């Protein structure tokens, strides 16, 4: 009995668990210390959490693209971060033109709608083209080939945008109606953050509904179960894959507009880091799973915003925000030690099995 147990537990397992325990210890100990020190009041924690939720909402919409493409093609579309960048980067020129004519602030709803539609259309079109040109010819190639192609496509798109629009910054004009705060239950919250969180939630619900309830969504799930059998059942696999890219691209474009509400500056390299974070969120939630992407993104957003203050401040570590990515990714490692397939990942493997 003891012998079989010893055989089953390898040295690597023990090391992994020690790392896990160390992370858990730092998190718990640091949090207790920080809360004891009482440097920040409840107000600050609420602000940080809301910042995290808004960030999470943006990550969620980008993560969706990674996750549904992985679902149907079993490949990671690394160029997705550039799909995300292309929407707001193109729409900035429309926004600037509208602002110049005075339309931007006199008709804010129509303006933001136009900008959002343009961003979604550009991102979506680019995603479809990318699939047609770069991935479709490689559909039956070994799995690593489309992965490398995706990285190449990512660089291509980045530097194509730099070539067209230059390497400088472009700033979105400010929307007067989104300035300032709303008071929700005696707490003032920035309007942009509320708009971002609510829109992200609504969009995620719509997209989830699309995947779960519509005929097209059903076909998508069928393709992700088994491409060949789905094809035999009369599903046009190519069309479904194109649709998947279109939906993922549109979500990224929408996420891009939410992103610029929070950080109104666009730049050809802006997609890289949010893309990386969203990919992480998708893995964290269980890649291939739509609610998982949302959950993972929210967790990552909050960890980034709250983590450095909560875990490190109490331990007297100076300048903790330098380490916010380190914290977010360390927690990611911790969660993946406990649940290697991501938080909601298991459900998928069960249904697949």
């Amino acid at each position: 009995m003891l012998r079989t147990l010893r055989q089953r537990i390898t040295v690597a397992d023990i090391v992994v668990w020690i790392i896990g325990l160390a992370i858990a210890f730092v998190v718990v100990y640091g949090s207790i210390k920080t809360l004891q020190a009482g440097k920040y009041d409840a107000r600050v924690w609420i602000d940080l959490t809301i910042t995290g939720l808004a960030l999470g909402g943006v990550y969620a919409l980008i993560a969706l693209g990674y996750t549904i493409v992985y679902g149907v093609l079993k490949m990671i579309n690394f160029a997705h971060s550039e799909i995300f960048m292309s929407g707001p980067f193109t729409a900035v020129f429309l926004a600037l033109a509208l602002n110049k004519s005075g339309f931007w602030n006199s008709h804010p709803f129509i303006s933001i709608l136009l900008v959002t539609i343009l961003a979604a259309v550009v991102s979506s079109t680019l995603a479809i083209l990318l699939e047609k040109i770069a991935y479709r010819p490689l559909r039956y190639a070994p799995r690593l080939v489309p992965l490398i192609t995706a990285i190449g496509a990512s660089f291509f798109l980045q530097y194509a945008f730099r070539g067209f629009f230059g390497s400088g910054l472009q700033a979105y004009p400010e929307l007067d109606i989104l300035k300032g705060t709303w008071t929700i239950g005696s707490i003032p919250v920035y309007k942009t953050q509320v708009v971002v969180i609510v829109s992200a939630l609504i969009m995620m619900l719509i997209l989830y509904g699309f995947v779960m309830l519509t005929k097209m969504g059903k076909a998508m799930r069928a393709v992700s179960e088994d491409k060949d059998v789905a094809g035999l059942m009369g599903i046009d696999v190519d069309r479904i894959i194109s649709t998947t890219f279109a939906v993922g691209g549109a979500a990224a474009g929408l996420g891009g507009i939410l992103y610029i509400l929070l950080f109104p500056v666009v730049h050809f390299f802006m997609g890289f880091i949010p893309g990386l974070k969203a990919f992480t969120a998708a893995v964290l939630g269980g890649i291939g799973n739509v609610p998982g992407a949302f959950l993972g993104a929210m967790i990552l957003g909050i960890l980034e915003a709250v983590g450095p203050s909560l875990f490190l401040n109490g331990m007297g570590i100076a300048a903790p925000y330098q380490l916010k990515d380190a914290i977010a990714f360390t927690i990611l490692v911790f969660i993946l030690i406990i649940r290697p397939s991501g938080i909601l990942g298991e459900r998928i493997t069960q249904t697949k099995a």
Partner: protein
Amino acid sequence: MSKRLLIVFSALILATMVLSACGPKASAYECTDSIGCVTVASGDPIHLAYAMVINGPDATLGIDSRNGVEIALAEKGQLLGHDFQLTGEDDGCSAEGGQAAGTKLAADTTIVAVFGTSCSSAARVAAPLLSQAGFVTISASNTAPDLTLPGNENNWPGYLRTAHSDTFQGAAAAQFAVDYLKATKAATIHDGSLYAESLANQFAESFTGLGGTITAQEAVDPNQTDFKSVLTSLAPGGPELIYYPIFIKAGALITRQAKETTGLENVALMGADGMFSPDVSSGAGDASEGLYVSSPDLSAFSEKYSTYFLPKYQEMFGSEPISIFHAHAYDAAWIVMNAIEKVAVQDADGTLHIPRQALRDAMYATKGYVGLTGNLSCSPTGDCANPVIAVYEYHAGEYPPVKVWP
């Protein structure tokens, strides 16, 4: 097989002997300089190079300096009958970029002098490479103090700068905070770059020395876009001023996000010369209203700056200067050209010999050179600046910012 090898070898040895025999005879000039000479054949251009940030989000800083150098070279035209050739590498405004640019430039032995780097982080790794290659390096925008600190391991022979050391700028910023803003509590943010970190620390030291309190010293990653959380964490300390002497992209974003952070709506914001750029004005939008930046005092510049330099800049590059170190770069170029003129030896056929150590000595010996940025004299460790620091205030939608102090 071995026979054939033997033949090849003897042929090679013979060739070497013939070549080495006729080598020295070609020139009458004998190089006695301790680190060698550059020979520029008659009709060939004198090769100068730059290592500046010319791509990416901080590109305006490097391009602006390069423009300054080009104006000086164009003004001079020819030196002892030779044209100039200016080539360059991107220093990326980072240690990695400095390493790459330094390595590439050091391999090209025709280079006489290097203008650069743009950023101190790049200088720390590029300066030793360029120094060991025998070049002179002169930077128009490196401000980290240790680069010219006597006896410091980062002070390399052959390295000079026309930019002021941060010791002055950080102290001036602190003086401004106390005198003009009447601030007693301040927070600092740097981005991990050598420039920003040393400036933030210098500011904190001087500010504390003047009786102020530093509520927090934070650091961020310049590639991030979300600075909301770090700003939120600064708010409870109640700073009256946030000092973030960083670069354009992150600087614009922090300016914008600080105004939207609860508790920081009325805090004064201040950056340094790295944020003196139209990109900050457009990137921060309305939030740029009231943003302070310290910078070399443009009104202390010589008259030639407005009568000759600015029109020339407009003529050659079609715009107003896009950053702040163009005049320093122009002066740097003249210091190099004057030194070359002083030490170069010319053969009868026009061939030019430039002894490298003598060139270094001549540059260090620069005394009372009347440049755009003031009367420049170089210290034995390479500090050539005549630092006059002023503080400028941005107004929304307007560029350049307006001088408010002293």
